[in-house]
């Protein structure tokens, strides 16, 4: 169903980078994605036909089935089944590690996460789903909460909030998850965007808590190719983005160990998410973002 080749061809990181504002970027991503999926991106997916009922004065004539009227001489109104009325929450990691951008990436991890979050919000609101957001404020002690809503103005609100976010500080995922568990009461779907570069033990508790509260959590793990492949060749001073710690590293000697550790780290998280039945999607900052969206849609189909 998903023509990835076409999508890849269509995706232009330069175009994306040149676009001003998160709004345009989100639309570019989503419309590109939906164009690849269907001829008409706004019909036939979120709204599905259910059955008929007799016309009553006052009904909107747009929903009258004229064909049926022509065939049977009966005035019937088409009824649609709203696919979901689920509340979605976007949770975005704002730790300083998200600021990393490798040489081959089209944007930093944080920028990529923001675009994805905005695109998903736009998409959900188009389907009449309610979208909200939980993030950490400047002082990570106080969360910032946007109540889910279906109103079109919600998109603007979410965008403004996303644009105001700045990656800074150290590990914050467990705090973010705890805040989400406290603030999200009704059963909801949580879209979690992060690089997850924190020990899984610290974060696992938060995920478990959400899961036990009945929420569905979808993980978008945004990673840079440098983190996945460690392609460095020259010896350099490496400085940790979150802690500021420095180390002289000779990459040829360190690569093997790094990769094995990284794989172990990823495996730990994958096990965790498997146990918790949380869809986990790795988003690379050097590839197009539709892959993540396709994964999201597939998971959503599965859930419903």
């Amino acid at each position, binding site marked *: 169903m998903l023509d990835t080749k076409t999508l890849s061809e269509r995706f232009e990181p330069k175009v994306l980078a040149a676009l001003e504002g998160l709004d345009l970027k989100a639309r570019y991503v989503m419309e590109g994605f939906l164009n690849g999926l269907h001829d008409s991106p706004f019909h036939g997916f979120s709204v599905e036909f259910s059955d008929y009922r007799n016309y009553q004065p006052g009904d909107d004539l747009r929903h009258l089935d004229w064909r049926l009227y022509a065939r049977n001489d009966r005035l019937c109104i088409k009824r649609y089944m709203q696919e979901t009325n689920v509340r979605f929450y976007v949770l975005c990691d704002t730790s300083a590690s998200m600021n990393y951008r490798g040489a081959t990436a089209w944007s930093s991890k944080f920028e990529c996460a923001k675009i994805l979050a905005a695109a998903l919000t736009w998409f959900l609101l188009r389907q009449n789903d309610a979208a909200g957001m939980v993030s950490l404020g400047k002082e990570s002690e106080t969360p910032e909460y946007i109540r889910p809503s279906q109103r079109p103005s919600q998109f603007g609100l979410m965008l403004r909030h996303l644009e105001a976010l700045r990656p800074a500080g150290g590990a914050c995922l467990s705090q973010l998850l705890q805040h989400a568990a406290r603030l999200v009461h009704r059963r909801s779907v949580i879209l979690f965007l992060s690089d997850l570069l924190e020990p899984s033990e610290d974060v696992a508790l938060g995920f478990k808590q959400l899961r036990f509260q009945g929420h569905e959590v979808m993980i978008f793990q945004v990673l840079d190719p440098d983190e996945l492949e460690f392609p460095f060749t020259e010896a*350099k001073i*490496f400085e*940790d*983005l979150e802690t500021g710690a420095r180390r002289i590293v000779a990459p040829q000697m360190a690569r093997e160990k790094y990769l094995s*550790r990284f794989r172990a780290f990823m495996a730990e998280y994958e096990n965790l998410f498997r146990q918790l039945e949380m869809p986990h999607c790795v988003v690379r900052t050097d590839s197009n973002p539709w892959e993540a969206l396709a994964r999201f849609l597939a998971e959503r189909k599965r859930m419903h």
Partner: protein
Amino acid sequence: MPFSFFNPWFWLGALAIGAPIWLHLRRRRETNLLRFSALRFLDDNPEPRRSPMRLRDVLLFAARALALLLVVAGFAWPYLPAVNRVPIRESRVYVLDNTMSHQANDGFVKDRQRVLSEISAAGRDVQVAVVELAATPRVIVAFGDDRETARQRVEQTLPSHQRGSYLAAFRQANSLLANSLGEHKRLIFLGDNQENQWHENVNTPPFLRDVEVEIPKPEAQVLPNLSLSEPRVQRIFLGDKSLINFTVKLSRVGQPENANIILRANGQVIFNRAVELAKQPESMMLQAQWEADPMLWLKGDVTVEGADVLPADNKVFFSLPPVVEGKVALLAQSPYLRLALSRDIMRGQWDARILDPAKLTAETDAGKDADVLCLESNYLQSSEARKLLWRYLSNGRGVILFVNRVTPTINGYLRELGFESEGAVRTPAGNSEKFQFILFNHPVFHPFLSPDYGNLTDIRVSQYYRLRASEAMPLIFGERGEGLFFQGGKSAGKLFVAAFGMERDQTSWPVHQTFIPFLDLALQTARAEDPTPTTFEPGEMSIIQLPASLNAREVVLHDERGEIARARLEQGKAQLRLPDMPGLYTLTCDQNDRVEKVFSVNPSPKESQLTYADSGDALKLWRMNPAEVAKTKPSSARTQVRVAGVLQQRLWWWMVLGGLAMLLAEMTLAAAARRAA
């Protein structure tokens, strides 16, 4: 200088070294730094066995190394013992007198030759500097200059016509020696030992410290000389004639017995005659009159030809601007004054306006002030007249007051002007007082030295007021010793006060032939002067003031051959240094050929006094007390030597500069390399 952290040189040096290095290192670290997000997976990775700072860019490394080397070497240079291997035994400063008087008997040329030969002969352990004694003493050879440069500069120094100060030159030389490296400091004065120079500036605090002064003995006490000075030119109107009254001082020292004097004005020879000087006093005033067009600039010169040793002072130049009609406000009943200032008499010179005593309020309010106010004291009874007079004086305009009546009110007002009446003096008929003493040096009375304009001492005064003036200068005294004519000195404007009125019952002056010239001269003198003088000394700096209405950007100074200097004109003022050569110079504006001013540049008359003397007391007073020197010697002497040593090492500065330049080049190179990467 003992090492101290409080020494500003230390901090300056530390900053100069530290700042570029810190910037450099900081930038270098930045380029090799990678901010990474997953450092936790590298926590225990082994340290690299070889240095990551591999030498990749040899050029960059060389630039860095050279920069560092130059900076370090530059700062270390003055302290390297090898550099100062030749100890400086002696620091020597020549003060070469280049004033006009030293041209006598080729004194300057001989001394210049002496300096040249001594510079060549001086060994490597002798530092030499030369100070030129001119209007402003200047260092023509510094200690750091090499011998060839020094020779060239001394050779290029030409005799000047300026007057300089021995004291200023000695001070300049002393400051050079204070910052010199030599153990032995010598000041060699090569001048003519003019007596008037040694007598000037004797009362100055002592300043010569640890300096051996060598002054050659004067060869003679007096040298024969003829000189001209103090040219003074005035325009006098006699009837329809515009006469030029010219005086010049001829001074003679020594033997010259005959001289030929030539006076030229506007291209014509006015006077050319041999004068016998043998029986004449040493100083005499020569006077000449001739008719000249009042609408033209007067330009001329006088030359005296005779046997003397200093020809440079045998010629003086003079100039006089064309007549500009002035305005007089007259508040007087005297028919003589009214007649004398009428258009028929003063046409083209003075435009008189008779004020109506009943309309003085309107006159005060209108603010149409004339150049000079002429009034009689009886009008001072009116408060409006008093206000008017005071306004004239406050605004810098001239007032001529004839005291023909004194009342208590008038006396009170005179007191405000600095005069006090002590009663009237009336002499019996036929026994009136004559002018007894007249200050002929004053511009109003100077032309009356010549009998051609009449004899002022013939004038009689029969009634006058005895005025006591605390702040005024009497210019004429009567036979009883009472001041009869005064110049006030209290106000901004010029004030002349006559102790009598211009009436026949008070004085015979209105019917005397001197009356009209006197009135004209008094009005000319009372009128506000042009703020820019027209006579200067060679090399003098002048502020030239032109009318603010003149729309010009620059003033241009010309001599006979063409343009010689140019200066920017701002708000009607320009600063200009007059040339060194005596002569006549015209001033124009921008490209305009209209002559704005004509300046005459003449040497100082003091330079013509070829009387010589030993330095004597002057030098003793200029030297510091040995006890005082000893008190301050240990610390300050060492300070001076070291600081001077550091400052005078040119190479030191060049190395530091080179080091900084290399650092800059290296940074540019590194930035370019990074961009290319």
